[in-house]
Structure formats: C-alpha cells, structure tokens
C-alpha cells in the first residue's frame, strides 16, 4: 500500500494530537499508512499518557507565556515543543508493518531520523528505549502507542534549544533554574543548530527524504472525514480538563 505523506503543517496542541488519533482511526478502517510533519503554534508542553499535568507543568508560566498544554495518547515524558525550536513527525500505520517487537520498531523508525541526520552530516544513533543521541547527547525523543492493531509513533527533532525557556514552563523550582543546572542539561541535550550548519528547512527536507526512502508514497491531504473527526476530538478530548488532567 502507498504511504501518504502530509507535508509540514502548523497546528495548536489539541489539533496536533487529534490529527494523530483521527489518522490512526483512518488506518484502522483501511486508510493509507501516513507520515506527517508538523510544528506547534502556539508553542506547547505535551505530557505522556501516564504523567500528571499538575506535577510536570508550571501552568502559571504557561498562561503567562501563552504556551499550550496537552496530554498525549502515548507514554513517555514531558516535552516542550517550541514553535521555532523543533520539527515533529508522526508515523501511523498498521502494526503488522513493524512487527510485535516494540523496541525493534522504535529502532526502525528512529533509523529514518538517524539517516536524515546523516544527510546533514550529523552522526547520530538510536539509544533505547526511545531516544536518538549524537555525541552522547539527546537530539530526538520519540513515543509510540499501539491500539486496534494500528501503530502511532510520534517524536521531535530538536532544531534549536532554549533551556531556560524550557525550564520556565516545566515544574522546576526557580532556584533549580540555575546556571549550573542549565549547563547540566546542555551536557545531556543538544540540537541540530549546535552540531550542524543546516537550516530548519534543510533539516525538514532531509527528514522528508529519509522517511520516504525506498517507499511507494504520494504527497497527500487529510480527508474530510479525518478533519471532521479531528475537530471533534480536539474539542471533546484534547482540549478538555478531563483528558489533560486525568492523572
């Protein structure tokens, strides 16, 4: 079956997460496996399925800075999605495309990102469980769910990094946002801009090429049905307190 590739879009947090679920439902009903790229506007914090919004996110700072919050349908950790600082992707396909072994499927999809980094001259590798590292530092985080025999993996590619801004919206005490702690994080996390001269557009192009390499694909759009379901999910699920503050 041909892959559908949805080129880079910009969405708010609830819509971005709703599109992943609507595309998963479309695949369950026999629709095309889909690869999509997106950025977040406004910038947002997403928490993993099992995380507590109140424990992880500084909601006052989010309100002050106009940063959205959403809970994902995937596990994993808290991510600050800066509008200018990252590119996000999702892969939605029948589980049978990737097999039962979850770590092996992370390795396979993360391999496409590693390939894109390679095209940009960045030597990176998959680090189980769900990270990609270069020079020992994290440059991409990924998360996967499998429901109704459909695999959804989404993840971020860090293009630029502002640790201070990131910490301001996460629940880290003011005292901890010290120069020392910022330096400690910068020792563990990096971004494309720090290890390469590639522009964001070049990074995106490399991702597109690597994700579609050796695949039969077409550049597609969302169906009316997907968009209607997305609108419904964004309103009744991903923007509700019931969902976002469930744990």
């Amino acid at each position, binding site marked *: 079956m041909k892959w559908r590739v949805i080129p880079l879009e910009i969405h708010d947090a609830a819509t971005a997460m709703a599109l992943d679920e609507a595309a998963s439902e479309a695949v369950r009903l026999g629709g095309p496996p889909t690869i999509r790229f997106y950025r977040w506007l406004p910038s947002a914090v997403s928490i*993993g*399925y*099992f*995380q507590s919004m109140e424990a992880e996110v500084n909601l006052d700072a989010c309100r002050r800075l106009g940063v959205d919050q959403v809970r994902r349908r995937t596990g994993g950790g*808290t991510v600050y999605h800066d509008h200018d600082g990252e590119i996000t992707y999702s892969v939605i396909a029948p589980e049978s495309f990737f097999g039962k072994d*979850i770590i092996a499927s992370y390795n396979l999809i993360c391999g496409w990102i590693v390939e894109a980094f390679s095209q940009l001259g960045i030597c990176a590798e998959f680090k189980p*469980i*769900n990270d990609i590292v270069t020079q020992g530092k994290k440059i991409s985080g990924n998360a996967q769910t*499998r429901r109704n025999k459909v695999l959804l993996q989404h993840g971020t590619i860090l293009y630029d990094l502002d640790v201070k801004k990131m910490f301001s919206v996460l629940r880290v005490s003011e005292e901890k946002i010290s120069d020392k702690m910022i330096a400690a994080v910068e020792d563990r996390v990096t971004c494309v801009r720090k290890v390469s001269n590639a522009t964001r557009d070049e990074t995106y192009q490399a991702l597109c090429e690597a994700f579609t390499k050796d695949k039969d694909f077409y550049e597609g759009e969302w169906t009316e049905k997907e968009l209607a379901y997305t609108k419904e999910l964004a309103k009744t699920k991903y923007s509700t307190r019931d969902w976002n503050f469930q*744990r």
Partner: protein
Amino acid sequence: MGSASLKVSGGKMVNTKVELHNDSIISVQFTGDFFLHPEELIEVIESSLIGKRLDEDDLAQTINYVLQEHNAQLIGASGQDFARVIMEASQ
C-alpha cells in the same frame, strides 16, 4: 496518603501515591514517563492492588499476573519496580 518516586536504572521514572488502612491498600495511582501497552491497562493494574497487603513480592506478582493475562508490555519499568515504589510510599 504516602507518595514515592523511583528512577529505574536504565529505565524510566515511576511515581506513586498510595492510601492505606491497616497495611492494606485502599487506593493507588501510578504516574511517570514509562510505557505500557495497552495504556488503559494502568487502571486495571491499580484496581488489582486494592485490598492487597503490603508485601513487595505479592504486589509484584499481582501486577505481573495482570500484565501476562492481558498480554501487555511494560517498558522502562517492571512489575517489581511498581511494587517497590508502593513499599517506599508506605513507609
């Protein structure tokens, strides 16, 4: 109500809040950045622990039984880690 956190070596963070009565669990909730497939099973795991006494191995056995029964995969933590963090929260 007790709470505790455990960073699993080579794995993820598991936090718990647990409420006890006479060394038996009345309520328990797990949070963290671990992965569980299927995700909704977390509520079944939490329910399965209600009424159980504080014995780490028994708790781990209960959790592992639920995981096996549902053919579930817990990634970045184990049933034993979940049991351990309950014991820490109970002290």
